[in-house]
């Protein structure tokens, strides 16, 4: 069986959406003939003429345009060239797309693809994780697929939802992550998945960190530790129930995120578990994030900036000792 990568799944989902739903179109810089900076739209303009459209370098207008198109019944998929550049579309995302349904009763089903996260050498402006920023605002859905199958299924579902979705795809996974098929057994957006069962501690992760957490769990398994790894899949809505049920089994929680440490997904996860599942905890819930500096360029620094197999493992060991 042929291997498919995470980016293949993203491309394929867009292909299938264009094929199945005539309301879908794609808008973004260089998405047309060129097929996008990461080739996520390769070949699509040729196959679906007029529906894969090159945008000027105008992120604010791109989002506003998508909101307008959605009002008129379309389901735009907007590609940001890098998640980092959505900062200039931030206002339209949080204040126009995010408020539209609540204010007017008219939903705006737009999907904004955010190529997120670091790869060595990408530096401060091509490496950011922006999920926490968007999840803070009402009205936005924020998903963070970690597997090839989720990359496919969650993009399909994102475009089908009536709400604006920030689809945070991790650049590190694009070509590194491979699977036999992109058709997994899908869960709906809003449900987390236990990707590694265990009973000694729960590690909650999302996006690329799921794989680091899994590796840590596997290594610790050789020492007899059974670590349960939960892949959040979407950070808003956040599936508190699955996390809580896991902590109920393990009594210990580590939340792992690749974003900056102040606030964000790990704070939200710990805060929920501490508030609503305090009695389930046998030890202080822990978290590990990237460092509180811009994402550094040099691979030496970059590797030490984000959580790694080693630092996650150390954090789990510490958690088990508490």
């Amino acid at each position, binding site marked *: 069986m042929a291997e498919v990568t995470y980016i293949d799944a993203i491309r394929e989902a867009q292909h299938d959406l264009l094929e199945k739903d005539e309301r879908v179109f794609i808008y973004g810089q260089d998405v047309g003939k060129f097929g996008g900076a990461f080739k996520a739209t390769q070949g699509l303009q040729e196959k679906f003429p007029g529906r894969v459209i090159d945008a000027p370098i105008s992120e604010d207008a*791109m989002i506003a345009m998508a909101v307008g198109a959605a009002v008129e019944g379309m389901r735009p998929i907007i590609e940001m060239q890098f998640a980092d550049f959505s900062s200039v579309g931030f206002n*339209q995302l949080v204040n126009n797309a995010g408020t539209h349904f609540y204010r007017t009763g008219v939903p705006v089903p737009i999907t904004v693809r955010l190529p997120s996260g670091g790869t060595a050498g990408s530096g401060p402006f091509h490496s950011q994780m922006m999920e926490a920023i968007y999840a803070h605002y009402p009205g936005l859905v924020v998903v963070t697929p970690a597997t090839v199958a989720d990359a496919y299924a969650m993009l399909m579902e994102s475009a089908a939802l009536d709400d604006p979705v920030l689809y945070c795809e991790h650049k590190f996974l694009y070509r590194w992550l491979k699977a036999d098929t992109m058709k997994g057994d899908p869960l709906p957006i809003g449900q987390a998945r236990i990707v590694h069962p265990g009973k000694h501690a729960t590690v909650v992760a999302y996006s690329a960190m799921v794989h680091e957490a899994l590796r840590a769990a596997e290594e610790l398994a050789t020492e007899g530790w059974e670590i349960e790894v939960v892949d959040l899949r979407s950070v808003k*809505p956040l599936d508190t129930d699955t996390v809580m049920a896991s902590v109920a089994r393990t009594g210990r929680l580590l939340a792992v995120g690749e974003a900056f440490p102040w606030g964000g997904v790990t704070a939200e996860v710990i805060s929920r578990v501490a508030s609503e599942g305090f009695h389930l905890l046998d030890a202080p819930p822990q978290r590990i994030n990237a460092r509180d500096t811009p994402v550094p360029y040099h691979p030496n620094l970059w590797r030490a900036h984000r959580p790694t197999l080693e630092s996650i493992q150390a954090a789990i060991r510490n958690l088990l000792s508490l």
Partner: protein
Amino acid sequence: MPEVETQHAQVGAAESWEDRVRRTFRAMVTAYTLESKLSSLYKAGKIVGGVYIGRGQEALSGALGACLRRGQDIFFPLIRDQAGRTAFGETLLDATRTYLGSVLGPMRGRDGNIHRGRPREGLPAMISHLGGGVATVSGMLMARRMQGSLGTAVGATCAGDGATSTGAFHEGLNLAAVEHLPMVIVIANNQYAYSTPTERQFACRSLVDRAVGYGMAGHEVDGTDMLACLEVLGSAVEAARAGKGPQMVVASLLRLSGHGEHDDAAYVPESVRQSPLGRDCMTVAETQMTEGGFATAGEIAAWREQAAEDVQAAVATAQQEPGPDPFRDDWNAYATPGFREQT
């Protein structure tokens, strides 16, 4: 109360010049009457937040609304576009309900004052952040073009002199031009952005000089002159309809009120008020109506009376209606069932 008489253009129906002039003027009178009432209500503490009126801009805004066809065209109004809204066919009740926070209004008390619309009826609801309207309307038009339903529809949107400084406005204009969309972008240069005079806002001779830089046609008009506005906007709208791409119209006038009704606009020097920019378009228009034979003084008086009655009725209705009830509101920002935060 009886539904207010429809003042907007019918799709398909040809309209004579005289009819359009009359319709514009009546919308101006209605807007003027409504806004005077809203201002009083605000000053009496009956409206919270703020009231933003279009005094001095009734001709420009009304003329734009009158050139558009409800049910086909798109109108993205800004804060001084009561006359345009009325001419486009927004009901007075939509306005009074939103200002007075009626739960029966289009915004259900969730948003207020000029932050209202009916997006699916070609009347998007602005957010406060200035400049984004152009791109939003562009998206609406592009959607229709993809759907094959664009026909001869036109999208129109307004901006003040101040809004032209936003990055959003620039990006939208450029996008509209690249997509060659049937749009009319009206810039009301009313000499001030809140208290800021134009010389602190831009350094070009006229904002119309920006049109060429986007590759779009530019038009200038005296915004105090109703007939001139109707002519210039009429031809801009027709040019857009005819596939000539986005049209920029820059009108010169003066805001004849404060920025909002809390503001006395003391920063506007008497010399500016006395200049031709400070002409009251309502007075100019009234003269144009009678001297041009569009209406007699008697007809105008009757229209005023009708407007007063309609406004009174719309205010009374909205005032009797309930505000939103926090215990019954679903507090849900998501259209997808089950996505609401349980907080």
